């Protein structure tokens, strides 16, 4: 059973637009949600993260919106740049694992057209 689901599988936006990447999860015990960015041939790198006590987290052009009741979150990338073209993974973990057992979604491949 896929614990974390992402949509869409792929997304194409024009430079300057806002890209919206969606994520949902099954396990109510999950309370820490990092988003990772991965370029081809590289390992994933932490982009931004949120704890379930918050409903919004901003870091520059990147914003996470979190809805605990619906078990959904989304990553908004404002003013998208061609350099943002990458695969984005939503992950989830729980306090009772010490936040060390992460479940990843299948990823959203983002392409930003200049």
């Amino acid at each position, binding site marked *: 059973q896929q614990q974390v689901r992402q949509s869409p599988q792929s997304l194409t936006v024009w430079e300057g637009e806002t890209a919206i990447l969606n994520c949902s999860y099954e396990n109510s015990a999950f309370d820490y949600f990092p988003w990772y960015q991965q370029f081809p041939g590289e390992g994933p790198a932490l982009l931004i993260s949120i704890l379930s006590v918050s409903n919004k987290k901003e870091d520059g052009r990147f914003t996470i919106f979190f809805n605990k009741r619906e078990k959904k979150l989304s990553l908004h990338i404002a003013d998208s740049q061609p350099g943002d073209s990458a695969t984005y993974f939503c992950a989830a973990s729980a306090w009772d694992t010490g936040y060390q057992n992460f*479940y990843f979604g299948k990823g959203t491949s983002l392409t930003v057209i200049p």
Partner: protein
Amino acid sequence: EAGVTQSPRYAVLQEGQAVSFWCDPISGHDTLYWYQQPRDQGPQLLVYFRDEAVIDNSQLPSDRFSAVRPKGTNSTLKIQSAKQGDTATYLCASSFGTGGTEVFFGKGTRLTVV
């Protein structure tokens, strides 16, 4: 500061052959993870260590996969008799402590089993 280092970067095997992957985590990081990332999928946790102790290996196919971290620093992941279904990128990651600290990934070893 050096990141997580993995070798080799690529490996091509015939079914039934054995292979070992090596990981050097970031200095001082006590927690080390091995993930399997099939093509176009998110990383899936295989095993993780805190220092030299295995904390969770429940997702490691124990009949053919093994992982060690004897001195709590470097680690080796071994596949005894590779199958085509093992074709994936194997990612090593490390972190310090618990509580949602950042996990740093290496670039991975891309394994192809023919």
